[in-house]
């Protein structure tokens, strides 16, 4: 949220740049990606190889991206929506079908990921996977040990049992402000279908958070990286790569904070961030060239090494650093993979119920 405002400012600036660059008749591609989500040298290499200039802009929430896409005329040629958003945006007619003849590198993709992604984009017609990951628990090893004693941290119980949450209150609990994921996780935890859209199930899922609400310090989706890293909070529902970034930042700061990420044994939500081309994109050929470039094994391996997320590219796996590829938090083993679930998008009325319950929880009313 905090940086959403900065993104607005950045976007306003970017649109000025867009207008300026449109006048110069050079090849250009306008990319709108998540913040901290690429090794910037990849963009330079792409320009060197193809002569296409990259105008790169970032967001930190699907909501901002979606609002821009739905309003139309966003000016972007490649965008990176997360899967449930992607599905809804495809239904709204936001994207154009990919021209596979311009994407020869698509043969490098990982069928396991493409199949799961097809739940949102039947036939993989509109999008290819960029990165994927899980939503799990990031925690400060020493502080959680001090609060809970020497217990294994491998279950959602650590957060969702009120007696545990109460003990963790003092060192700071953060919950991701991403209601679609947090509800799916809670419904899965209490043994319901994580993909349920029934009001009663959603309310039961919300109840999990209502019970621990008095012990929760913050609800945010980007500031928690720093808060974990500098010890302001000790445990958070977080996205795998974000938590690993917090770990790296703490190591760099040498502040004695040790961060760990765990995929709880009950299973969790698996998400996909995907490359897609808006229907009103002006530089369609350049957009395809950019997506094709990102599907080169050595390029996407470099991106994964940098952002510490798994990618959907099978051919890249031998090129990824061992520290990333052999890390079960990034590339889970086959057993864990089976417990990861995906959810279908919420309809407008269901979304209203969901966010209504979520707002009630957050404001503590």
């Amino acid at each position, binding site marked *: *949220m*905090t940086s959403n*405002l*900065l993104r607005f*400012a950045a976007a306003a600036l970017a649109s000025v740049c867009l207008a300026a660059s449109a006048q110069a008749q050079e090849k250009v591609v306008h990319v709108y990606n998540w913040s901290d989500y690429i090794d910037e040298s990849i963009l330079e290499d792409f320009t060197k190889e193809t002569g296409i200039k990259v105008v790169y802009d970032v967001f930190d*929430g699907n*909501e*901002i991206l*979606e*609002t821009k*896409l*739905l*309003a*139309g005329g966003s000016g972007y040629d490649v965008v990176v929506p997360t899967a449930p958003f992607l599905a*809804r945006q495809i*239904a*709204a*007619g*936001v994207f154009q079908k990919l021209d596979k003849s311009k994407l020869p590198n698509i043969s490098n993709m990982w069928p396991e990921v493409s199949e799961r992604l097809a739940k949102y984009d039947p036939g993989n017609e509109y999008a290819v996977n960029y990165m994927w990951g899980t939503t799990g628990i990031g925690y400060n090893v020493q502080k959680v040990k001090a609060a809970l004693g020497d217990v294994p941290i491998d279950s959602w119980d650590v957060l969702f049992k009120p007696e545990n949450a109460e003990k963790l209150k003092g060192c700071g609990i953060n919950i991701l402000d991403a*209601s679609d994921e947090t509800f799916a996780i809670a419904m899965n935890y209490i043994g319901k279908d994580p993909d349920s859209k029934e009001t009663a199930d959603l309310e039961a899922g919300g109840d999990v958070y209502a019970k621990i609400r008095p012990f*929760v*310090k*913050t*609800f945010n989706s980007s500031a928690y990286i720093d808060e974990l890293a*500098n010890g*302001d909070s000790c445990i958070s529902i977080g996205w795998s790569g974000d938590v690993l970034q917090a770990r790296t930042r703490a190591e760099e700061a040498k502040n004695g904070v040790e961060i760990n990420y765990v995929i709880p044994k009950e299973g969790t939500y698996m998400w996909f961030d995907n490359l897609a081309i808006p229907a009103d994109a002006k530089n369609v050929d350049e957009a395809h060239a950019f997506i094709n470039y990102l599907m080169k094994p050595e390029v996407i391996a470099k991106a994964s090494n940098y952002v510490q997320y798994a990618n959907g590219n099978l051919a890249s796996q031998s090129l990824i650093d061992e520290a990333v590829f052999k890390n079960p938090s990034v590339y889970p083993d086959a057993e864990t993979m089976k417990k990861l679930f995906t959810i279908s998008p919420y309809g*407008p009325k269901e*979304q*209203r119920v969901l*966010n*209504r319950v979520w*707002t*009630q929880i*957050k*404001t*503590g*009313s």
Partner: protein
Amino acid sequence: MSEAHALKPSPARWLVVIFPYVWLTLFFLAPFLIILKISLSDTAIAMPPYTPVFQGFGAIGDFISQLDIENYIFLTDDPLYIDAYLSSLRIAVISTLLLLLVGYPMALCMARASAGIRPTLVMLVILPFWTSFLIRVYAWIGILKPEGLLTLLLQTLGIYGPDDQVQIFRTETAVFIGIVYSYLPFMVLPLYAALEKLDGTLLEAASDLGCPPWKAFWKITFPLSLPGVIAGSMICFIPITGEFVIPDLLGGAETLMIGKTLWTEFFGNRDWPLASAVAVILLLVLVVPIMIFQNQQQKAEGK
């Protein structure tokens, strides 16, 4: 004067008269009507995400028949929105009072300062505007956060022990600090303008006739500065009610304000029609104080 009124208006005069109305129509009335129209629509998974979409005047009858006030009914059904409006108004009222409390003495000191340094003082009040508003609010995060500058200061002074931390960041107190800091110039300047015009001989006369200074303040200074108090309060109260940035950056999850609710409806729920309905109601909530303000202004000018 009466001769001027009798003159037949020239085209140039007409232009001058019409210009503000054209401006208001283009930049207030037209956008408002668009928002009003969206607030009567329904959400849809489409581009743009609502239906019906205006297709031209040919199909206007059909278009109008699809509009309804369902969103407004939903707003009254759900206590969330009423709570958010009330909470915003409460925060705006308290903030405005705090601003008066802090701003009035400042403005009074400025007005009583010698004429030579007054421009410098006014300059100092305006000076913060030279830095981006967003950066100034971010700076408060650095000051108020638990391991921030305020904690450091209190620890250095020995008031706080090494393990004590200031727990202000992400509370309503932080929101009030941020609002009072950000809006202070908007309160001080109208107050200063009113107080500076004050005729000093009135206070001299009061003093000569044996009126103690505090009584002279309440009998003379304050009533005469009332237009400034009203102007400053309105200029602050109205935007604070719809404030989004400060509660978002400094406030916690508990701080419920209508600006934030609007954001969630628009971005989180992609419910443009409901968000528009919230905005229309917000406008109505604010129109009342604006009317009072206008009324007061006219009275003041009439005197």
